[in-house]
């Protein structure tokens, strides 16, 4: 029985791994192909099936004037917008979440849970509902087609995630921890940043990861709120497509688009597995 279970478990894990990894291998292989290798017959292994070329990768860094598409600038734009918006969302979201977790708010029939739900409800409607208001808003304050405009919009999108995750996290940190800090001589602000915050690093990391992922992969707002001045990576990658689909450079750009997320995942996984984040109290 136990052996069967182990067997099934490993079979499933293997299948799943193949399912996840195969597209990546395919993309890696494709990124080194040329037109001939993609379109003539099915090829898999470089040198054996086809002669690898770096052309697909070179196009990505060449300036448009020399026939390239230059995704370097959009790449750094994306990093800047995602990181700035995530950081601000985490800071504001954590403060809001702490307040919602520890203090009781009353305004008419509105209670803490209603406020938390209000934050989350920002993500319930389809993004298209927000597109026109955001467009008008950014054009009014003159931030259309700019990095800062995108940062503002992304904060609106990411903060609900941060609030939601952190409220749940703080609710699981016993209030005795804050109370002990108060008794030990902290004022309420010190209790928050000296005691509660260091204990909340696991939650902050999870919230940060979600913010980075959702910020990084957004195409919709990056597409409708920018034109020529500023471009983000997802938009630029899609723009690579033309009458002849350049599968090789699309594969290469897809790979370097996911690369940061893979790195983040590995770093966080290391940190999680060290056990630093387990068992907050007791």
């Amino acid at each position, binding site marked *: 029985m136990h052996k069967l279970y182990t067997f099934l478990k490993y079979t499933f894990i293997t299948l799943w791994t193949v399912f996840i990894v195969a597209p990546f291998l395919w993309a890696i292989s494709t990124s080194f192909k040329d037109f001939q290798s993609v379109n003539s017959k099915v090829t898999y292994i470089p040198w054996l099936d086809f002669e690898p070329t770096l052309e697909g990768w070179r196009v990505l860094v060449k300036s448009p004037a020399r026939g390239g598409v230059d995704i370097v600038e959009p790449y750094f734009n994306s990093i800047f917008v995602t990181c700035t918006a995530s950081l601000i969302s985490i800071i504001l979201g954590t403060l809001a979440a702490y307040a919602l977790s520890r203090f009781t708010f009353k305004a008419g029939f509105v209670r803490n849970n209603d406020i938390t739900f209000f934050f989350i409800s920002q993500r319930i409607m389809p993004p298209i509902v927000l597109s026109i208001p955001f467009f008008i808003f950014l054009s009014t304050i003159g931030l259309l087609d700019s990095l800062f405009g995108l940062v503002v919009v992304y904060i609106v999108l990411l903060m609900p995630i941060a609030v939601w995750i952190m409220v749940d996290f703080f609710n699981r940190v*016993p209030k005795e*921890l804050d*109370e002990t800090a108060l008794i*030990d001589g902290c004022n309420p602000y010190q209790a928050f940043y000296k005691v509660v915050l260091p204990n909340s*690093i696991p939650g902050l990391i999870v919230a940060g990861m979600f913010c980075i992922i959702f910020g990084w992969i957004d195409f919709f707002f990056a597409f409708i709120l920018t034109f020529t001045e500023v471009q983000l990576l997802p938009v630029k990658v899609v723009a690579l497509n033309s009458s002849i689909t350049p599968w090789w450079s699309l594969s290469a750009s897809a790979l370097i688009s996911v690369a940061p997320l893979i790195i983040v995942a590995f770093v966080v996984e290391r940190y999680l597995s060290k056990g630093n984040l387990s068992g907050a109290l*007791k």
Partner: protein
Amino acid sequence: MEFIMAKIELSNISHTYNPSDPNPTYALNPFSMTWENGKRYAILGPSGCGKTTMLNIVSGLVRPSKGKILFDENDVTNLITEERNIAQVFQFPVIYNTMTVYDNLAFPLKCRDFSKEKIEERVKSVSDTLRLSSFLNLPARKLTADQKQLISLGRGLVREDVAGVLMDEPLTVIDPDLKFRLRRNLKEINEQYKTTLVYVTHDQNEAMTFADNIIVMDQGEIVQVGLPKDLFERPKTTFVGYFIGSPAMNIFESEVSSDYSVKINNIEIKTNSNLSKIKDKNVKLGIRSEFINVAEKEGQNTIKALLKRVEDFGNFKLLTASMGDFVIKSKVNREMPIPNGDINLYIPPEKCCVYINEKLI
């Protein structure tokens, strides 16, 4: 203002957790109490009787719905916890996970800007008492649950100038042997530094051995405050009689038969209480099983009862006898010969407590 070793006075305090309710339920009914500086108090009562609420009110974590708290005549009701200079230890270990054991113990002193030398000296002294010295450089989260609780306790004791140390069942997770030693250590700390210690517990033995004064609470009400001996011999209500002592006090439904005697099951029992002013004839007679002796023959104040069970506890024997519907328990010396069948139990008048409406006369 620093409150160092203050007299703590609770004046007309009451508290409800749902003040907006038109008929709020009170976690604490109005009461007044004074905790003298340097004494040891135990708050004893079943779960949910308001013990923790009372501590939280004193430390400032909870603001009372009504009433005032005075430290040495100064009104501190509106001061926040940080300004009250109180130490409090909770029932379950609360540690600062991200710090080492040393930093955990030093935290209360660091927050109050003590000098480095003073911090070192205090942490050393406290960690020696609690046997934590060998763990000082470990991350606090690596310790076991009872060691973590020792850290919590240590943080409560590390400041020697506090107005009071409030402990909310602090030894629940500690093993019995260490528990015994720690209670003695707490007593020594109290004697040495004259720190007021307030100790919440639902364990009467803990309360009896630890405290100068015991406060018995039930359902948000302070039922009796007194020395362990008073609580044992003269419980003010039948609740205290039941709650304190093991086994609980024998309590019999009875009728007043004369100015100094009651009748149980038509047997006249003399008491030392003056019953002449009682209008309601139905009273209850309470007597500790420790004070009931086996008599050789029938006589004044003896009850003839059928012996049901004898339990040997090693240092004493517990007899359970019945007389009609009444069950009588008596604790006797273990060497004492116990007859079979009917026995005569002597009830000393000076140890009898008479209760009317559950209150002592």
